[in-house]
C-alpha cells in the first residue's frame, strides 16, 4: 500500500476520492430519488413544504451567520449563540406585549410595533453578546483554544438558566399576530403572509450585513482582523473594539432571528436556543464556517431538508428523525468536506 501510495499515478490519486465520491453520490441520489417520488405523489404538497422550508431556512440563516461571523474573527465556536437567540425570542415577547401592548387582531397597527420590537430586540441581543465576549472570552484571548470553547458551553448554560429564572420552565406564548391569510394560492399551493413576513424581515437584514462587511470601514476592519490580528493592529485598527463590534452584529442577528421565530412559531422556551443553535451551527459548517454566503446557503439547505423530512407524504423518516439527519449531515461534512460547500481549502482554514 505504502509503495503504491508513493507513486502518484493518476489512477492512484483518484482512487480514494472516487470511493468517497461514489458513496456521497449514492446518498445524494437516494435523497433526490425520494424527493422526486414525493414530487410526483403530490406536487402541491411538495411545493408548499418547500416554501415552509425556505422560511425556516431564513431563520436558521440569521442564527448561522452569527456562528460564522464569530468563528471568522476569533476561531471560536460560540456555543452560547443559540441561547442569545432564545433571549431574542423572550425579549420580543416582553417588548411587544408588555411595552407596546401587541395582541392579535390589531390589523396594520402591528407594523410599527413589530419594527420597534425588532430594533429593540436586536439591540438588546447585540449588547448582551458583546458583554459575553467582554466578560467570558476576552480574558481568555491568549489561552489555549479549548479554554474559550468550554467557557462558551458554560455561558450557554448560564443563559439558559437566566431564561428559566426569567420566564419559567414552560412555553411562553407570543400573540399570533402575523396574518395567516394567503399571499397567493396556485394550483392548491398556499403561501401565507406569516411566512412572507419572516422572509421580508430576513432579507433586508442579510443585505444590510453584506453591505456592512463588504463596503464599510468597520467591515474592512472586521475582515482585516479576521485575517491577521497583529497586522490589523499595526494598520491602526482597534482589534478589541472590532471584536466587540462583531459580537454585537452577531448578537443582533440572533435578536432578529428570535423575533422572527417567536412571532412565527409563537412559542419560546428557555432551552430552545440550544437545540436550534446546534442546527444553525450545522448549517454554518455545511456552508463553510467563516464564510457568510455559505452560512446562508447551508441554512436554507438545512431548513429544506428538515421540512421535507417532516412534511412530505411518501415514506419520509418523519420528525422523529430530523435531528439524526441533521447531525449525520454535520458528521459527514466534517469527515469528507470539512471546509464546507463554499469554503476554501486554505492553511488558515478559510
Amino acid at each position, binding site marked *: 500500500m505504502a509503495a503504491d501510495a508513493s507513486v502518484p499515478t493518476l489512477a492512484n490519486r483518484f482512487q480514494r476520492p472516487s470511493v468517497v465520491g461514489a458513496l456521497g453520490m449514492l446518498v445524494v441520489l437516494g435523497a433526490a430519488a425520494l424527493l422526486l417520488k414525493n414530487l410526483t405523489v403530490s406536487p402541491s404538497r411538495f411545493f408548499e413544504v418547500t416554501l415552509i422550508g425556505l422560511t425556516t431556512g431564513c431563520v436558521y440563516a440569521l442564527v448561522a451567520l452569527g456562528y460564522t461571523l464569530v468563528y471568522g474573527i476569533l476561531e471560536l465556536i460560540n456555543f452560547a449563540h443559540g441561547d442569545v437567540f432564545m433571549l431574542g425570542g423572550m425579549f420580543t415577547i416582553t417588548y411587544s406585549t408588555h411595552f407596546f401592548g401587541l395582541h392579535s387582531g390589531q390589523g396594520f397597527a402591528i407594523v410599527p410595533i413589530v419594527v420597534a420590537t425588532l430594533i429593540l430586540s436586536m439591540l438588546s441581543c447585540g449588547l448582551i453578546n458583546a458583554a459575553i465576549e467582554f466578560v467570558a472570552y476576552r480574558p481568555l484571548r491568549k489561552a489555549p483554544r479549548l479554554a474559550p470553547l468550554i467557557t462558551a458551553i458554560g455561558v450557554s448554560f448560564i443563559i439558559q438558566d437566566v431564561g428559566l429564572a426569567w420566564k419559567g420552565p414552560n412555553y411562553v406564548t407570543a400573540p399570533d399576530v402575523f396574518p395567516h391569510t394567503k399571499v397567493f394560492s396556485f394550483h392548491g399551493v398556499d403561501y401565507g403572509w406569516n411566512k412572507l413576513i419572516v422572509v421580508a424581515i430576513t432579507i433586508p437584514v442579510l443585505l444590510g450585513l453584506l453591505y456592512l462587511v463588504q463596503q464599510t470601514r468597520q467591515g*474592512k476592519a472586521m475582515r482585516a482582523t479576521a485575517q491577521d490580528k497583529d497586522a490589523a493592529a499595526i*494598520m*491602526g485598527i482597534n482589534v478589541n473594539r472590532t471584536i466587540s463590534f462583531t459580537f454585537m452584529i452577531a448578537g443582533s442577528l440572533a435578536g432578529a432571528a428570535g423575533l422572527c421565530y417567536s412571532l412565527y412559531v409563537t412559542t419560546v422556551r428557555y432551552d430552545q436556543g440550544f437545540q436550534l443553535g446546534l442546527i444553525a451551527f450545522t448549517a454554518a459548517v455545511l456552508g463553510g464556517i467563516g464564510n457568510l454566503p455559505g452560512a446562508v446557503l447551508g441554512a436554507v439547505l438545512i431548513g429544506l431538508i428538515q421540512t421535507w423530512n417532516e412534511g412530505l407524504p411518501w415514506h419520509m423518516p418523519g420528525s422523529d428523525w430530523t435531528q439524526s439527519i441533521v447531525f449525520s449531515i454535520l458528521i459527514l461534512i466534517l469527515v469528507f468536506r470539512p471546509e464546507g460547500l463554499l469554503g476554501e481549502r486554505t492553511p488558515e482554514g478559510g
Partner: protein
Amino acid sequence: MSNGNAATAATPILQLSDIHTYYGSIHALKGISLEVHDGEIVTLLGANGAGKSTTLRSINGLNRPRQGHIRFQGRDITSVPAHEIVKRGIAQSPEGRRLFPRMTVIENLEMGAFQRKDRSEIKGDMDRVFELFPRLHERRTQKAGTMSGGEQQMCAIGRALMARPKLLLLDEPSLGLAPIFVERIFDIIKQINEQGTSILLVEQNALMALEAAHRGYVLETGRIVLADSAESLKTNEQVRKTYLGET
C-alpha cells in the same frame, strides 16, 4: 547624507532608553538604547534571536517593554496601544510580511491608509506606490496570499508607505528574495528615505544594509554591543568576521 549630519544635533525622532522586553518568561531585550534621527536610515544587525524583531515589536506596541522608555518626536509612546502608534507616524513592514492573504493588493494598500483622515489624497499615494513597484500595479486585483514572496514584500512595504509615516520600520525586507529583487528593494528604500522618511531597518543581509544605512547598531542576545556609523561598521573587524562572512 548632509541632513543626516545636521540632524544629529536635534532631538532624535525615535529614542529608546534602556528598554527591557519579555517574550513570555524569556528576557528578550536586556536594556536596549538607541536613536534614530530625522532623515536617517539606521540598521539593526545581529544573529537570529538577538532581539532585532523584538525591538521593532516593542516600538510598534505589539510587545510592550516592561521597563524603559520609548519616545517618538519627543513624546513618550511606551504604553500607547499598537493601533494608536501608526496614527503618530510609525508604520511597519513586519517580519513575515503579514499581508491580509484574502484581500487584493489594492485592498491591502487601502488597509495601510486605514487610520488616515485625508481620504482624498489616498488615491494619489496609491499611484505613487504603484510607481515605485510597477509589478504591484500588474497584480492589483490579485489576492495577496497568492503572490510570490518578492511581490508580497513589495506589497508589505507599499502598505506601510500608505500610512504616510514619518518613521518606517522595515523587518527583513530582503528575506527570501531573489538577488535581483534585493538590489531593487534597497534602491527603493534609499529612494523612500530621500523623500524624507526616516527608516529603522532590520536586516540579515548586513552588507546591503550597511551600504544603505547612515548608522548601525549590532545586537547580541538582547544587548547592543556596537554602535557606529555605517562606514566604520563596514570596516570594523568584528562586524566583518561575524556578519560580512570574512575570515
